């Protein structure tokens, strides 16, 4: 089975802190994604990557950056966390960018105080 592992299920950070959310997949997928999920807004795409060292902005990239140094790992970085970044963050991977299903991790619930 495909496994997508997010490093932390729950995090509490303070405003201004730098935050790293790590995601690792074990199926050699080229494509990886970061979404955030908020009540009433559904899932919104932050960034995605279709190859090592490649990245593309999603719908809401402001305040975030990403890193993909190895194929299996895709990191989401909040350079200076703010309270409006309190959310559930979901990582996903896909073997087929255009037609394939997404495999999601369990999510990381981030609270910024």
């Amino acid at each position, binding site marked *: 089975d495909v496994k997508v592992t997010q490093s932390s299920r729950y995090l509490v950070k303070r405003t201004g802190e730098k935050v790293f959310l790590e995601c690792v997949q074990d199926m050699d997928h080229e494509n990886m994604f970061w*979404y955030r999920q908020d009540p009433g807004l559904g899932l919104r*795409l932050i960034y995605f990557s279709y190859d090592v060292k490649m990245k593309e902005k999603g*719908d809401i990239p402001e305040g975030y950056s990403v890193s993909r140094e190895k194929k299996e790992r895709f990191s989401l970085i909040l350079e200076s966390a703010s309270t409006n970044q309190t959310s559930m963050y*979901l990582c996903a991977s896909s073997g087929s*960018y255009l*037609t394939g299903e997404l495999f*999601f991790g369990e*999510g990381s619930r981030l609270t910024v105080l």
Partner: protein
Amino acid sequence: SQQGEEDPQALSIQEGENATMNCSYKTSINNLQWYRQNSGRGLVHLILIRSNEREKHSGRLRVTLDTSKKSSSLLITASRAADTASYFCATLKDKGAQKLVFGQGTRLTINP
């Protein structure tokens, strides 16, 4: 912006009944997918239907797609308490940026 809009936002039925959820979208698509999310967990892929398909089945799931109306429906037959979850449709546009866009979901509650 959200491509898919689910309807209803919440649905509560008795165990054994059928549950129907609808999804509407705005632009032409390559495919439409349905996902399920248990409370506080990640999403799990249920079924994918391509733009040239009209109906697809998987176990107790039946998905229809009407590209002329830009809508899809997910039917869960003989519902069980374990089907309680949120259900999301996601669309892949056939032009432009190739990324899945999710709707806001339908919260389904199955009462025993």
